[in-house]
């Protein structure tokens, strides 16, 4: 009894006594802190564990995603029920506009093709893609990522661009055997080389956890117009050129980009398997075999990217159009 009373009195003495009475808690706090310090000091330490756990969790998340996706479709369907008439009207108008645009496009395509023949520009390597599904939306207050149900087995590797029907969604940051994690454009750690169409200005699209990423490293003194389209550039050898990203947002202090994709809506996505025609720094050698395998089924795609030398030989003329296009500004 006396011992018990002393114990109780000790617990009233402040933080040290509290720690003494909850030693396991204190031990786990120390453990968590040291794990965090190690994880921050050496980013790749837990990569294997992450990949293994993602792979293990993928079937569970896939099973959970099924009803969630059904719900998402249902709720979006209900939402559109009320605006059916307006939407129909809008679509009619858009259809009309698109039809005229289509004929213009066909004409322009023929023109471009003729110019290319005249200038003897080398053919661009076709970009192959793999389809996958978003099975988990792991966006929290600090991280904006999604999990896909395809991985190395499908030829997905770190760095590849992920797009949905609207535009660029993000890039693969980790791929397990049959699951992959995608870092979305809005994430704090997302940095993507982009180009502003029309102005031919290059910049870095940097996420800051807000809905609209910031354009950084614009050339000093450059003027950009709101509404201009932002697309990817092959700079850095990661993304294929010309993937639509978004539009320059109206009315903000720093130049921000209104993305074409809506993060929560992403359902089916495509992972673009692009191999840069030039050796950029030490671009990981792994993507090559991984990217080739699934392409084997498609005519002509595989032989083009298998040999290492021809693309290198084709490199200088491949890069010149881009450089030439940049000059006038």
């Amino acid at each position: 009894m006396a011992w018990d009373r002393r114990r109780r009195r000790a617990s009233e003495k402040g933080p040290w006594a509290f720690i003494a009475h909850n030693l396991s808690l204190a031990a786990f706090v120390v453990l968590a802190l040291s794990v965090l310090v190690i994880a921050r000091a050496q980013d790749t330490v837990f990569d294997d564990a992450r990949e293994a756990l993602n792979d293990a969790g993928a079937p569970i998340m896939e099973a959970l995603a099924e009803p969630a996706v059904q719900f998402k479709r249902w709720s979006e369907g209900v939402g559109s029920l009320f605006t059916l008439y307006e939407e129909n009207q809008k679509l009619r108008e858009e259809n009309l506009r698109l039809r005229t645009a289509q004929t213009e496009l066909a004409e322009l395509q023929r023109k471009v093709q003729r110019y290319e023949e005249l200038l003897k520009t080398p053919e661009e390597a076709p970009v192959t893609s793999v389809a996958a599904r978003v099975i988990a939306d792991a966006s929290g207050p600090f991280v904006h990522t999604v999990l896909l149900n395809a991985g190395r087995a499908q030829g997905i590797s770190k760095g590849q661009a992920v797009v949905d029907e609207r535009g660029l969604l993000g890039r693969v940051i980790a791929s397990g055997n049959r699951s992959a994690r995608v870092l979305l454009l809005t994430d704090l750690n997302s940095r993507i080389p982009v180009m502003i169409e029309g102005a031919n200005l290059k910049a870095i699209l940097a996420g800051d956890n807000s809905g609209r990423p910031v354009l950084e490293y614009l050339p000093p003194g450059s003027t950009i117009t709101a509404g201009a389209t932002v697309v990817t550039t092959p700079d850095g050898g990661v993304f294929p050129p010309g993937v639509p990203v978004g539009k320059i947002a109206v009315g903000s202090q720093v130049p921000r980009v209104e993305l074409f994709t809506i993060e929560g809506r992403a359902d089916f996505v495509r992972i673009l398997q692009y191999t840069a025609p030039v050796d950029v720094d030490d671009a990981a050698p792994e993507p090559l075999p991984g990217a080739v395998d699934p392409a084997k089924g498609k005519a002509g795609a595989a032989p083009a990217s298998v040999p290492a030398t021809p693309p290198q030989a084709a490199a200088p003329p491949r890069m010149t159009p881009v450089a030439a296009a940049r000059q006038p500004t």
Partner: protein
Amino acid sequence: MFEYLQLAILWLARQVWFSMPLIATVAAILVTKAPANLFYGLVPAPDIALVSVFFWAIYGPAFLPAWAVFALGLTQDFATGTPIGFWALIYLIAYGFTLSQRVFFIGRSGPGVWFGFAIVAALTAVVAWLLGSISYARWVPPGPVFVQAAVSVLVYPLVSRVFLLIRRTLTTAREAI
């Protein structure tokens, strides 16, 4: 031989039964990660793990001991992609804080505890924001952290009711053994 097997199965069943709070919370973490796009993505998913940590620190720390809180944090870290140990540390701090203030909560009515959770959630958000800013080496925008905390506070009465149900079943089960 059969007796030992029976004992082993019983022991295992009991272990699983008494880690119901942990299992339920891990399940809740996974469910909130399903891509349902509720409210068109404008409202973030609540942090049910924090609700669980707070609830069990008050109503039965023995059912969710420190190692289980650590495990919850690791689950959150692996599921969301934050640095390993990040949420583990935050949940342990929230757990320790709630545990140290336990005397104020015990015997209080529902709204009183709810108010207590609001304070703990706000403090946790401050800690999370600071720790996030330190571990990402830049000032993380504080908005999303506090919005998520607010959503967690809003769903607290509902989630705590489910945990209370589990708590009651666990107690009656323990008395029965």
